[in-house]
């Protein structure tokens, strides 16, 4: 079985809440964004206020994450 390293990043208030800037996960099979969140956060459901990106593109909770992708979870954006 081949494993690829998937990086999961957290930003802003979420980073402070989670207590780290990123997680690293060895994945062998695809999983949805929501499944990935549950795996990393003690089975907690993905909060619907968070936004998600896969490889720098906005994504939805049901979208598939491939081993080796870069995932980001973050709160609503407040730039400008």
């Amino acid at each position, binding site marked *: 079985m081949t494993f690829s390293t998937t990086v999961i*990043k957290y*930003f*802003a*208030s979420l980073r402070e809440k989670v207590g780290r800037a990123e997680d690293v996960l060895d994945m062998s099979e695809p999983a949805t964004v929501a499944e990935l969140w549950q795996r990393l956060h003690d089975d907690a459901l993905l909060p619907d206020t968070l936004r998600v*990106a896969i490889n*720098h*593109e*906005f994504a939805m909770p049901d979208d598939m994450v491939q081993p080796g992708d870069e995932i*980001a979870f*973050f*709160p*609503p*954006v*407040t*730039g*400008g």
Partner: protein
Amino acid sequence: MSVIIQHQSFSPYEVLQDHERTLFVTHAGKVGAANHFIGTMRDFNEGSDVTGLTLEYYPGMTEKVLQNLCERHMAKYGCLDIVVHHRVGEIQRDEAIVLVAVWSSHRAEAFAACQSMMEALKSEAPFWKKETLQSNETRWVAKNTSGVFG
């Protein structure tokens, strides 16, 4: 088209002046309208006195989102050019946070594209503001409000 995210403070008017030097060569005779928006750091928000502001972003994604927004707006409104400058890091009161500038042949496109770009940037570009209050407490800004009247 130019998208710049920078830690250093900048003068929006110098950016505009520099950009127009080449713009009026590239699009000589075609520019009929320019419109720009400058967002500046103020010292109050949500009923509190704000003494400091830090802006975080997602290197790699933020640039990509802004680039896509520029391309989308250039195509939709038929603009001649769009420039976006955005500060990150520590920002002082009265400093520029963001500049969005649009050039087109007619004013309708310049007005509409500039406002639409700013609203899209506010709701889609991965930036996050953290305020320092007079009490020295810090807080993340929860969300952006709409800038459209009515």
